[in-house]
């Protein structure tokens, strides 16, 4: 029988390839469950989960909440904007107050890198990182790799490009860790100003040429330009960015082979990807959304299975 090597999901960095395969295997079963007429299982009926979002989120929050409800967990939601955080309460105090209400698991998004890791050392609950600043977004990377595996089969030796704002992207870092762990080759493509220094040390190749990268890869993950995290101008204009790094149908049609297009959302249509590409048959953006629920069910289920109830 298999179990995860970790008690929290803080980042892909802390997982093993066996952990990822176990999550994928479990997610495959949950994907079958969420396509039944009744899409719910009773496994977590005695578990309470708090979703703490200290940063805006639409799809991740909805996806986690749906995954929790499909597993029959009790769910409470918290948004920093409407809370005592505004009155000066610390993160640990906020979470300990929530845990005093007998909460078993915390799903947290936070603007500061390392916030989930810090919390896991301070409080007594399972922590799932739903994105910590520019650091990691593990469930996004898992659902991206799972969606790729569905299309491409085993990712060993497959060529995956991550294109766009690498510098500010937690999705990029988690994807690099996950894809490398599964044996894929990874190439990053962006203007030099949006590539972190020494990123090659993670075992990836780097390019500033979009067309050669697209011709090299089996699949391309198009990242959004994260204007909200930019304090400087990293490129002259959005128009120029989309001219050099935007994925258009014309560019796709010039390639030697058909590639798969991913996007973690939200999409800035006409900037990193045009509507024609986003809505094309090569794009698996909505598959990613569906798989997101199954992957999150798997992660929550596997972590919850470690919260053993003592038998008298």
């Amino acid at each position, binding site marked *: *029988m*298999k*179990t995860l090597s970790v008690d929290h999901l803080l980042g892909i960095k802390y997982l093993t390839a066996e952990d990822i395969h*176990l999550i994928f*295997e*479990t997610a*495959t*079963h*949950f994907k*079958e*469950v969420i396509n*039944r*007429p*009744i*899409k*719910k*299982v*009773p*496994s*977590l009926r*005695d578990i309470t989960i708090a979703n703490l979002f200290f940063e805006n989120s639409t799809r991740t929050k909805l996806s986690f909440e749906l995954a929790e409800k499909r597993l029959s967990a009790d769910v409470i939601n918290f948004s920093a904007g409407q809370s005592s955080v505004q009155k000066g309460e610390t993160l640990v105090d906020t979470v300990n107050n929530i845990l005093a209400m007998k909460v078993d698991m915390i799903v947290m998004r936070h603007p500061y890198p390392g916030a989930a890791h810090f919390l896991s050392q301070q409080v007594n609950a399972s922590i799932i990182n739903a994105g910590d600043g520019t650091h990691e977004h593990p469930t996004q990377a898992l659902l991206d790799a799972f969606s790729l595996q569905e299309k491409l089969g085993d990712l060993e030796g497959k060529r995956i490009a991550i294109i766009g704002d690498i510098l500010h992207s937690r999705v990029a870092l988690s994807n690099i860790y996950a894809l490398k762990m599964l044996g894929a080759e990874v190439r990053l493509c962006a203007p030099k100003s949006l590539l972190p220094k020494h990123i090659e040390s993670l075992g990836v190749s780097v390019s500033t040429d979009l067309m050669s990268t697209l011709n090299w890869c089996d699949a391309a993950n198009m990242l959004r330009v994260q204007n909200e995290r930019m304090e400087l101008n990293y490129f002259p204009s959005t128009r120029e960015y989309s001219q050099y790094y935007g994925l258009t149908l014309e560019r796709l049609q010039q390639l030697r082979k058909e590639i798969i297009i991913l996007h973690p959302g939200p999409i800035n249509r006409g900037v990193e990807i045009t509507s024609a590409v986003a809505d094309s048959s090569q794009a698996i953006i909505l598959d990613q959304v569906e798989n997101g629920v199954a992957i999150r069910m798997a992660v929550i*289920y*596997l972590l*919850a*299975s*470690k*919260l*053993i*109830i003592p*038998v008298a």
Partner: protein
Amino acid sequence: MNPKILLDDKKIEIILHRLCCQLVEQHGDFSNTVLVGLQPRGTLLLDRLKLMLSGMKVMNLKTGKLDTTFFRDDFRRKEEPLNARSTEMNVAVEGRDVILIDDVLFTGRSIRSALTAIDTYGRPKSIELLVLIDRRFSRHLPIQPDYLGAQIDALQGDKVRVVWDEDPIKNIVYLEKQNA
């Protein structure tokens, strides 16, 4: 100590034939019947029943394989994790007569989880239970089989194993004593 053989290949063959005859007697041409094998070992029994029924000219049998892991009542109650197996239910159960199939009926808890799991595919007209072995006097829940291969008595800690076609043995049911 060698395990005690409860049923050998010949006896199992006779029992399977009898169970198939009982199924045909109750379900006729099986036009409204779905046979559902429970993962992992009930599906092996289902495969053998299917083979034998096809030899009895029962055609177009509707079957499925159901995993009940996510519906079990011992989640988080064992150090050993519960890993799911695949479910293949490409057949509608709404309004149909469903027969759940498992190799050994022990506490009845697996069958309880199967009764909940099958409901997620629709509301069957009826649900029956077929088992090869009934470990009587060991039930935790009020669940009894409708079609039964053989009844055996075993102590709580004993293990009853059904082996299907594992070279060099063909089919046997044997008992492993807890202190063996």
